[in-house]
């Protein structure tokens, strides 16, 4: 296969058109970067390529001959394979068995021939930087980066000519990313066609020979990778929303306004937990956004969950409007006017198979029921529709399962759960992780609106740019302790990062 071509691909789910006529050319020995924000139709396009989804209109041509991809098996037989972001693996089978799952080498009695499989995979190991001793370990022992390599090995062993990577670096460390990029270059130079899907602009020049920008199910740009700039790509990706882009208008808004003199709404004093955090002090003022920065594992979420009654502190005090509280459950915390948006959308956030209606109203059911216990469905529906309009949540109907929406829309939904409540304190844990730029900017706008309405907002984030963009006060945590705090002063990103990684030594207060 030398050339795979998509012509006028159209695909709708329900009433929503995910792809509105997409053309793309994928050629052997070339890397095509497919750039687009979440919800632009990238996932649907991959599924079309790998036979998991059949297009409503348009055709797929291999070397000029139209083909119909019946299912992923068929696409694979034709040499098209995808390596997904979260690897589809068999955790308790060996790496070798994972590579050969479904296409085991056997003798005529069906007995698996381990030696033959080893021989078949050996030539690929060095180009993937995989050690042969790994082949006999259970897949679950490998980190995500290695697991991706195993799946690439699987594709190669099966003779893949076109390999589709679906945002592979989203879960990888920097070193793993560099490694993967090197491997992708080798595969390309070896004559394979690479399709690389991403929403990270900075990856385009490193990876691509060619970049195609997808916006709202349409191709909005098609360039050689050498002739594009980040600005151009950003403009193309954001489409018509670009002009409104609130993210650019306000970097550290009203930081200059200085610390307010009013007493903080939420005060944490000397809060300690047996494992996760020690002697933590936080203050969050009404009408302001307090950013909590730190690396993963700094204990930020655990402090938040303690305030929200989901974890128990060993010692210390939590004060809400000056009154000491110690919520024993999230329900108690909510009754006190505390909200918490957890960091893991899938596991701690959404009720995936349930409709938007149930997902968006679950925090306000006592308000939306007759006498507090019989659900008022018309009121729930009205509220859901209002929320969907207010936060521009894209879905067919209020009953659409939230799990079927894009990550950005899911996150807006989770945010909306709390935005409609009357709260004293709202803690947002990684409110924009893994979502696209435009939605990110939208959510930042909503956060500011809430703060202006008087709620004390705490934003926990690992994204330095986000911290700098939204927060007025900053608290930095490292290894379970507060190591730095800035109230209403101009903070530099370098200073915050240095504290978080321990390059700055003493804990100190920087006041206006």
């Amino acid at each position, binding site marked *: 296969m030398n050339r795979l071509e998509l012509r006028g691909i159209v695909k709708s789910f329900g009433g929503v058109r995910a792809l509105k006529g997409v053309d793309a050319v994928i050629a052997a020995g070339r890397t095509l970067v497919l750039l687009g924000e979440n919800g632009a139709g990238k996932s649907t396009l991959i599924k079309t390529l790998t036979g998991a989804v059949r297009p409503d209109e348009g055709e797929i041509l291999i070397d000029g001959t139209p083909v119909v991809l019946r299912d*992923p*098996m068929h696409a*694979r037989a034709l040499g098209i394979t995808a390596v997904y972001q979260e690897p*589809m*693996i*068999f*955790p*308790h*089978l060996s790496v070798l*068995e994972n590579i050969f*799952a*479904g*296409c*085991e080498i*056997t003798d005529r*009695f*069906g*007995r*698996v021939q381990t030696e033959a499989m080893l021989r078949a995979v050996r030539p690929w190991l060095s180009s993937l*930087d*995989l*050690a042969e*001793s*790994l082949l006999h*370990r259970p897949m679950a*022992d*490998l*980190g*995500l*980066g*290695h697991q991706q*390599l195993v799946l690439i090995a699987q594709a190669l062993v099966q003779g893949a000519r076109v390999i589709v990577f679906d945002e592979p670096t989203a879960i990888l*460390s920097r*070193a*793993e990313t560099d*490694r*993967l990029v090197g491997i992708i270059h080798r595969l390309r130079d070896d004559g394979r066609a690479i399709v690389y899907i991403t929403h990270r602009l900075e990856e385009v020049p490193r990876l691509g020979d060619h970049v195609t920008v997808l916006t709202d199910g349409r191709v909005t740009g098609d360039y050689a990778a050498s002739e594009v700039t980040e600005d151009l790509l950003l403009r193309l990706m954001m489409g018509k929303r670009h002009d409104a882009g609130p993210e650019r208008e306000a970097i550290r808004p009203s930081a200059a306004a200085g610390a307010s003199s009013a007493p903080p709404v939420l005060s944490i004093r000397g809060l300690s937990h047996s494992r996760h955090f020690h002697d933590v002090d936080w203050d969050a003022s009404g009408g302001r956004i307090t950013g909590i920065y730190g690396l993963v594992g700094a204990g930020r979420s655990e402090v938040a969950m303690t305030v929200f009654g989901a974890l128990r502190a060993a010692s210390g005090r939590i004060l809400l409007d000056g009154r000491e509280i110690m919520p024993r459950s999230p329900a108690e915390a909510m009754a006190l006017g505390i909200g918490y948006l957890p960091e893991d959308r899938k596991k701690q956030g959404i009720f995936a198979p349930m409709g938007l209606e149930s997902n968006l109203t679950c925090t306000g059911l006592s308000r939306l029921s007759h006498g507090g216990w019989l659900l008022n469905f018309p009121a729930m529906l009205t509220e859901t529709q209002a929320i969907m309009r207010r936060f521009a949540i894209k879905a067919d109907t209020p009953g659409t399962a939230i799990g079927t929406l894009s990550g950005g829309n899911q996150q807006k939904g989770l945010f909306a759960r709390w935005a409609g409540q009357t709260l004293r304190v709202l803690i947002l844990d990684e409110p924009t992780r893994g979502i696209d730029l435009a939605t990110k900017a939208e959510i930042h706008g909503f956060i500011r609106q809430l703060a202006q309405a008087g709620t004390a907002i705490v934003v926990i984030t690992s994204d330095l740019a986000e911290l700098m963009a939204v927060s007025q006060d900053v608290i930095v945590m490292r290894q379970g302790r507060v190591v730095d705090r800035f109230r209403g002063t101009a903070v530099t990103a370098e200073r915050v990062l240095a504290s978080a990684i321990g390059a700055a030594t003493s804990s100190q207060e920087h006041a206006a």
Partner: protein
Amino acid sequence: MKSSALNLGPAAPALHGPRRVPVAWRALLARRETALLGVIVLVVTAVSLGAHGGFWTRVNLDGLMVTCAITAVPAAGMTLVILTGGIDASIGSMLGLVSAIGGLLFVAGWPVAAVVPVFLLAGAALGWINGLIILCGRVPPIVCTLGTLSIFRMGVFLMMGSEWITALPPGLTRFFVADHLGPLPGAAVIALVIMAALAAFLRVHRTGRRLFAIGNNEEAARLVGIPVRRLRWMTYTILGACVGLGALMRLGQSPIVQTTTGSGFELGVIAAVVLGGTELSGGRGGMFGTFLGTLVVGLVGDAIVLMHIQPFWSGVVLGSIILASVGLNEGRRARQVVS
């Protein structure tokens, strides 16, 4: 382990571990099989001391081995089902129904050679029906087989009325219980052969490995082209045939069929498999564990009889062992994350 596993490349040290020997020892000690052997030694010691020599008699050991064999054959089939993430709660009634069908044919004067295959085929057919409902009807296995548990039992009532069947050929008892190969009664020999065959099937045959794959990640298995539906269906059918054979062996041990025959049988079988370390969520486990699990279940029952403990305690003891073994699984998992 976790952080080093995240490093890419051949330099990741923990993945190559130079400390091979101590790791191997620790792995051996942490293995469930080791723990089960410990339990077996413990029970045997206790019963040797507590039963006044009643344990190490020919009669008791033969009886114990036949009892174990009757559990072991269905447990071997159940291992395949549970490995794929399924379960079959209907096998008690299935055993009763197969016994009733076969017993009535014996009474009707059919020759033994003609009825023996009927046991296997009838069992396979009932298992096939479970598979049909689960895989074509998309009914969760536990729901389907709880349903067929009642339905098969109704079948027993319909076929037998209030009668008992006792006119069974003495050849069964002779073959399964009285005849020996070395120290092993016929039933035990057959059970060992079947377990060994299925163990080899699971270990080296493509289809056996695919059953593991299905239990690990059914969706991924489907996407790599493994015929998930057909293979899962096959496991229920094989289990049915195993239950048919178990029913035949049980008639050798106690030549009587009642309407209650086999009720509660599923518990011992599922207990043996779970005790053996095959995870109810699928994808992990194996036949050797089931073999040891069967021994534990059989030994506990035997000890209770020999030591004149009231029979309802056998349920308590078995239940406690199962709970402890699930705890063992949890502990094992927790250690893996830390190390």
